[in-house]
């Protein structure tokens, strides 16, 4: 997935010289996850460069650049470190078009690795997507595979509005399904790891059905798409697994059609439960599918604690927990 993300930036930089890429360690070194490797060499230091360790400065400068007419695609080294930039994102990037009635706009992308599963402890594992989905004016994207990562990132860079682009770092090397004791299959062996060269778009705001099924709808994104699929296989449940891909704006239509068909719904995310994005999903599903629901909507999520180091796999909502919830909902 790293190559796909890099390729998205490469393609975008080649097509539009207003696209600039910067962040901590992204220039000469190519990023701690190597997502920007080679871009400085190829496009020069004016197009891809290292920044001081100031997420506020990175996003603040990006907003100014966007107001000038550039299309900055910046990296926050870990999603856990986005908070210093939160004011610039919420009060500025998200509001600029509205408050200036379009005099100034803010086509920026803020990329950040998200999620746990790498023994990163509480400050290298967080999933803060719900802190952005509450902010009018932002778009929030979470790819689950290389093809999507590339197509969605290109669309995000070309989008006229600010996009928060969360990259599940546990997926960088393969479709991790939560079975941490088994080796992960590399993307090269996966259909969605076969990334087309050159430019292509995947539209923001469109979900993808990863597994069709009739008995229950599973709503997931990022790493949880694979965890959910594994749980369905293991339990032998005829579940429909929807990969949301974009959380804001949300593809409500696809969700509602599926739940109306299945009558049951399980929501899975790695972020903590309370006020997580699953809450919004549950609220919407019950609102739009109330008369079709045969059981309460279940949420399987990270617990409401900071992400622990040693107890990583007790914390992570793996296939066993998802499987139990599926069963409960089927029996509910």
């Amino acid at each position: 997935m790293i190559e796909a993300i890099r390729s998205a930036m490469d393609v975008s930089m080649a097509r539009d010289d207003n696209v600039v890429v910067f962040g901590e360690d992204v220039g000469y070194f190519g990023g701690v996850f190597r997502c920007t490797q080679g871009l400085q060499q190829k496009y020069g230091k004016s197009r891809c460069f290292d920044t001081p360790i100031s997420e506020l400065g990175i996003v603040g400068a990006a907003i100014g650049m966007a107001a000038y007419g550039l299309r900055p695609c910046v990296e926050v080294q870990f999603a856990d470190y986005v908070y210093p930039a939160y004011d610039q994102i919420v009060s500025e990037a998200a509001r600029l078009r509205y408050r200036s009635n379009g005099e100034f706009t803010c086509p920026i992308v803020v990329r950040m690795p998200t999620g746990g599963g790498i023994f990163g402890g509480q400050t290298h594992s967080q999933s803060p997507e719900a802190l952005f989905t509450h902010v009018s004016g932002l778009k929030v994207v979470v790819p689950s595979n290389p093809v999507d990562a590339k197509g969605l990132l290109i669309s995000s860079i070309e989008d006229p509005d600010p996009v928060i682009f969360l990259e599940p770092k546990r997926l960088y090397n393969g479709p991790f399904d939560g079975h941490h004791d088994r080796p992960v299959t590399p993307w090269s062996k996966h259909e969605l790891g076969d990334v087309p060269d050159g430019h292509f778009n995947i539209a923001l705001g469109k979900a993808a059905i990863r597994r069709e099924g009739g008995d229950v709808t599973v709503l997931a994104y990022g790493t949880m798409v694979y965890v959910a699929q594994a749980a369905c296989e293991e339990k032998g449940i005829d579940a429909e697994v929807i990969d949301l891909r974009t959380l804001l704006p949300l593809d409500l239509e696809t969700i509602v059609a599926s739940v109306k068909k299945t009558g049951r719904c399980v929501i899975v995310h790695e972020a903590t439960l309370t006020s997580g994005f699953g809450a919004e999903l549950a609220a919407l599903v019950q609102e739009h599918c109330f008369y079709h629901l045969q059981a309460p909507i279940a949420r399987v999520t990270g617990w409401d604690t900071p992400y622990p180091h040693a107890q990583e796999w007790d914390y992570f909502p793996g296939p066993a927990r998802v499987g139990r919830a599926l069963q409960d909902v089927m029996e509910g």
Partner: protein
Amino acid sequence: MAGGDGVLKFHVPEPEVRPGGTPDFSNVPIPKAGSVPRPPVDVDPRQIRDLAYSIIRVLNRDGEAVGEWAGTLTDEELAEGLKHMMTLRAFDTRMLTAQRQGKTSFYMQHMGEEAVSCAFRRALAPGDMNFPTYRQAGLLIAGGYPMVDMMNQIYSNEADPLKGRQLPVMYASKEHGFFSISGNLTTQFPQAVGWAMASAIKNDTRIAVGWVGDGATAESDFHAALVFASTYRAPVILNIVNNQWAISTFQGIARGGSGTFAARGLGFGIPALRVDGNDYLAVHAVAKWAVERARRNLGPTLVEYVTYRVGAHSTSDDPSAYRPKTESDAWPLGDPVIRLKNHLIARGLWSEERHKQAEAEVLDTVIAAQKEAEKHGTLHSGGKPSTRDMFEGVYETMPPHLRRQRQQAGV
């Protein structure tokens, strides 16, 4: 609260006087006009550290322009500058009254600080971009932005260019080099640096200007701006308008032990100048110097404008609760309008009579604009932006959930 021997004591800075006391600025060192030399623009910043602790002044007590910083403006420009400041002052007076009359919710005036934004604006070229706070409307007035549009914005009326979405005075105009004002302090400062970086990345010639108040320098964005400006040698001017007060807190709370705000630049190797903010000529001369530096790839400049906020912080504020009512009379740098007027009179270019006449003309223009604006409505009466407008412009294309909500709202 002082501790006994050998124990720690907590220190909280206090202004010299509080309500009831006698205003006293005798501790503020004011260098003589013309006494601060003007270095070449490509000077090594280390050579001019003193400028961060002094005050560059051009107009002396007799209204003469003296010293190396004098002479950057023609007679016509000076006369026009006076008119800009007078216009801004008249504009403020009318809008303050309008707010009291309930024609809008809020207003913020510039009394005493008119020279800063009006004179600075003159040093810029078309295409340069300001990232202002709420107290630099002089940039618009001096830049020829229509007063009617400003008033339409203040009234949130049907002709408001911002469609009623923003608090009064939070103007935005790309064409006039005036970035959208934020209610959140200091966020514009790193944005200004980013804009300047973009201009350099594109091998453009346009420069950016960030504006911030004394109180707002304490915000973290200030640091990010200086770090990025210093590292990338961005073509940006970072302006601190030190009008002595935040809301109720005097400048010492934000400044701490550093003596001046300009000094903040020294830690970043950024040339830092302090200038008499009530001296139209000095402001212009310093602005010109900094603009030339930016334009010539010499990097950022930090400028502190020493001025005084004569009025209340905003229409929601009453300063008599925290500072002597007569404090502004004691302010040693005088009134910017009177000082420029006296300069023009001293040079035989102006007279008291002509000034009165100009005041009347300016007032007429402002009143005419106001009448025109009020045709489009005021906040609580007449035409207003639509509820539909409220749902527009969150994104370029309205997403489905907002369409659903607009429908629910029945508009």
